[in-house]
Each structure stands twice: as C-alpha cells, then as structure tokens.
C-alpha cells in the first residue's frame, strides 16, 4: 500500500485506535479498578482483594476486575420509574466517551519509519515517511483536549438530572460547579507550557523534551523542570476534573452518593470505568506535557535506538515498541501516583473547594502565565 494514500492512512488510524482502546486504555483502566483497592489496602495496612482467581491462577487477585465485570453484567439494570429514560441511558456514555476521544491526541511512541524499517529508527525526525504513533496529529492539540474533556461534565449533570433523585441532582450540580471552576485553572496552568514550547500539538511538545534535565539546553528538559508551578496547578485541576478525593464532593460517599446513585449494573460500571479512564488519560496528558511523553532522556533514548533487526521485528518497529513500553510504564506509575493522592488526602468542603479553585489556584496560574511570558520574552530578546 502506498505511503500517504487514503487507504494507508485509514488502515493505520484504525490499527492505532484499536490498539489504544482495546490494547491500552481499557485494560489499564480495568486493572486500575483492582489496583486502587489493593494499593489503598497496602497503604492502610490491610490486604485488599486478593482472592479472585481463574483456577489455580491467582496473581495477587488481579482477576478481580473480571469478577467485577461479570457482576455488573448480571445485576439488574434498574431505571427509576420517574427518570428521564433517554437521558438516563445516555448519561453514562456521555461520561465515558470524552475520555476515550481525548486519547486520540496522545503520542504513545516513536514514529515508525515507513519504507526504511530496517535502516532507521524514528528518533529526532530521522524518517522520510514517518507513521506517528498518535491517532490524530492535531495542530489545535491540547485545545481539543480541553474542548472534549469539558464535555464530560454533561455526563455527570445529565445523570444527576435524569435520575429524578434529590441526591443525584445535588451530586450533578456539585459536579458541574466543580468541573467548570477547575477547567479555568486547568487551561491557565498549561498556557505557560504553550509559551515555552511554542506549540499546542502534544507530539511536538513531547519531542522537545529530549532530556530529563539538561542545564546547557534547559529548554530541552522535561516540562516539570520548566514549569514546576504549572505542573502542580495542572495536577490539582486534573484531579478535580476526575472528581476524586480530595475533590470528590460530587460523589461524597458519606453524605450524598452522587450523580450515579440511581445507577446499577453495567451503567454504573460505565461511570466507574469512565472515572478510571479519565485517570489514565489525564496521566497520559501530564506525561506528555511535563514528563517528556515517550522520551526517557537522551541517554536512554540513544541506548534504545541502537536496536538490531530481530526476527520479524525490524529496527524501527522494535524501537517504537520499546518507547511504547517506556511510555506505558510512565503512565502506569503516574496512575499509581494519582491513586496514592486519592488515598492520602482528606476531602475538601464545598466552600473550601471553590475558594481554592477561584481564589488561590486561578490567580497563581495567571501569575505563572505572566511570569513565563516575561521569561520567554527575555530569553528571546537576549
């Protein structure tokens, strides 16, 4: 098939989409549902779910998520009599879909060098015909991320409204106010990074972070060293967007169950999995902007680039796979870090949440943008 032809692009995109959803996002999100319980147990000196097994294969209970799925499938799918049926059925999809759509812009490995698979590796733009390991290379990039991820609020709001339940309604309203507030900070927090990298395209942003930290060419270091404040602000806002502790007032288990109180079975499962998908995707976005995407510093990248042609794996493919593994490990570790935050910090009260969002984080993020702009201007002028 001709490189660059429509058929080629369609086929490549389909393979990438199938891999991203079925090969990465869904399995990782499913495992996170188990990992959250197990990791929290380990933090709290408990054992956690360790019994699920398939025959003799126990693997510390990792198959627990399959047991969950089977349970979700067989539970009664209850719709309250006075609920708005159409919206009630669509809300879980609205909550889950944005996380999957947003994953399209994330670069997850070094590009394949099409036609030169046995000669070159996709490091540093060496390829003549690169096949990017990124589903959609959009120039608007992260704006697309903000646009789509802000749609996730509809899932929570509609679920709360359509359930015909006071607590669900309250949860939906809380989710709306929270997500609206923190989206502002979220956008402001990465503006600094946009100024530094001069691009909105996640692939281009990741490709500039070739070193972990390099004092000679400081702008080629990981984003966290260029924008430490921006990272903290973005991380805070991203956790608030995923509606997890310490920002889980939309759910608030001890007071209101939240917008999904009336959901059961697979529909609840979609909310549940959607939350973990959001963790994975926000981790991947943070890895892209602040931790170099699939790059692991010039030394490791250079080491990995010296791959030979093995069996049916030509050089380029093997290098792409290795960088994919590096990226996956980074995302996994970051997901674990997000889980750790969720199990370490107590919940904010509603008014504290709003005060933190509007009176602390937003001014700080604006200051960060102004300061970054001045520094960038000074560097360019100098």
């Amino acid at each position, binding site marked *: 098939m001709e490189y660059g032809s429509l058929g080629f692009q369609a086929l490549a995109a389909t393979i990438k989409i199938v891999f991203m959803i079925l090969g990465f996002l869904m399995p990782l999100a499913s495992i996170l549902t188990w990992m959250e319980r197990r990791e929290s147990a*380990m*933090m709290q000196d*408990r*054992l956690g779910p360790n019994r699920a097994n398939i025959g003799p294969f126990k693997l510390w209970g990792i198959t627990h998520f399959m047991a969950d799925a089977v349970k979700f499938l067989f539970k009664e799918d209850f719709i309250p009599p006075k609920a708005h049926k159409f919206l009630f059925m669509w809300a879980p999809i609205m909550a889950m879909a944005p996380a999957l759509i947003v994953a399209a812009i994330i670069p997850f490995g070094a590009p394949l060098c099409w036609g030169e698979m046995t000669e070159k590796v996709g490091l540093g733009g060496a390829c003549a015909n690169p096949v990017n390991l990124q589903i959609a290379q959009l120039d608007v990039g992260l704006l697309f991320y903000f646009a789509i991820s802000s749609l996730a609020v509809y899932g929570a709001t509609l679920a709360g409204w359509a359930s015909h339940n006071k607590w669900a309604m309250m949860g939906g309203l809380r989710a709306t106010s929270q997500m609206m507030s923190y989206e502002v900070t979220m956008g402001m927090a990465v503006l600094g990074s946009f100024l530094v990298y001069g691009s909105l395209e996640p692939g281009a942003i990741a490709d500039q972070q070739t070193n972990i930290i390099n004092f000679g060419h400081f702008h080629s270091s990981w984003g966290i060293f260029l924008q430490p404040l921006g990272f903290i602000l973005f991380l805070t806002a991203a956790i608030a967007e995923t509606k997890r502790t310490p920002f889980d007032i939309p759910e608030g288990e001890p007071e209101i169950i939240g917008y999904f109180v009336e959901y059961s079975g697979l529909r609840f499962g979609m909310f549940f999995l959607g939350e973990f998908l959001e963790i994975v995707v926000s981790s991947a976005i943070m890895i892209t902007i602040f931790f170099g995407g699939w790059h692991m510093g010039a030394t490791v990248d250079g080491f990995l680039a010296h791959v030979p042609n093995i069996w049916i794996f030509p050089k380029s493919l093997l290098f792409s796979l290795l960088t994919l593994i590096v990226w996956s490990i980074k995302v996994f570790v970051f997901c674990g870090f997000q889980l*750790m935050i969720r199990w*370490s*910090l107590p919940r904010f009260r509603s008014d504290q949440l709003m005060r933190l969002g509007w009176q602390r984080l937003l001014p700080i993020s604006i200051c960060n943008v102004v300061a970054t702009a001045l520094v960038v201007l000074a560097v360019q002028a100098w």
Partner: protein
Amino acid sequence: MAVGVKVVNRPGSLGQQAYLPAIAEGLGVTFRHFVKNFFGNVTGQRKKTDIATIEYPEEKKAYPERNRGLHRLMLRDDGQVRCVACMMCPTVCPAHCITIVPEEAPDGRIEKRPMIFEIDELRCVVCGLCVEACPCDAIRMDTLDHAKPTYRRGDAILDKEELMSRGVRSTAVQGGVGAFWREQVAGQPQTPASGEVVPAGAPHGPTPLRDHGHK
C-alpha cells in the same frame, strides 16, 4: 447585623497554608506503608509487614474466654438435661427467643424437666441474661461458636437435642451437693437447732460451700 461573625485566626506560616509540604509529608507516610507492605507481601514475608488483616476462613482469631456464643444445655451426671423447666430464662429473655414446655419427669427424683426447649437464634440478642438467670447451670453460652447461618428461618430454631449435643456434664453443684440433693439430704435436718439457715448439703456448720469472695 443580626448574625455575629467570629473571626478565627488560623495559625500557621505560609508553608502550612500552602498545603504542599503537608501533602508531601502525608504522601510520604502512605508511600512508606505501601512499599513496606507491598514488598513484604510479594515476597511472602507477612511477618515483615504491618498488615493487620486476618484471612478469615483460613485464619481464625481466638475469642476471649468469656465470649457469649451459641447456647448449649448442660447435662446431669447420668446424661439427662440439667434444666428443671423453672421458666426463669424465658421470663428474663428480652427477645422472647426461648420456648419451654415443661413436663413431669418420669424419674421420681426430679420434679420437672423440659419437654420442649427451643431457642430461636435469629431472635436471640446474645445478651446472656438467660445464663445469669439460670439457677442450676443448665444453660450456657460458652461454646465460643456462632449461630450457624441457615437457608430457612426454621433451621435457626435449635431444639433440645441440638442444644444438649454440645452440652457436657456440669461440675456445678445443684442445691449445694449435686443433682440429686434431695436424696442425699433426706435424712438430715434442714434447719439446725439454732434456727440459722444453712445451705442444703452443708451439715457441719454454717460455712457456705461456695465462697464468692463477698459476704
């Protein structure tokens, strides 16, 4: 203004108010526990972890000696039920879970015995008042066992045989000298000349057989 406002001066430096140092410290604590428990658990060295979980069906925690558990009915020396159907326990039972139907004992030495003795373990509140009330150490709750889960409510009602199957011979003395005290004290005067009431079976003076340490 109608509502008084009390301004609370929160203590703390900028570092405390910025949350971040405290958050880092908290994450450090949880991470330390995580690492210790995770690696201890993966390498199978539970001793080196802090984990407090008891894996129930395989591991069981010993109950304290005075735990109130499933009821049992104690036996006389000859294997008969000790209960004399005095109706103390159904009277005191706050949950009305004990049913006793008395009958005359064929053995002439005992007046009454329970024909039916049933305890509904689903209604029982495990208060132990029946044990307190029993004058002849017939009912006890010291089996260190639970009421077994059942598929039907009726199965949770334990009958006399079931309750007796857990019973053993009681070493307690009934009326002071054992189960058949009437025979043993038949030939002895119940009240000494001094008029002082002596516990039955204590022919030689007023010393009580069982001294509970308070007079």
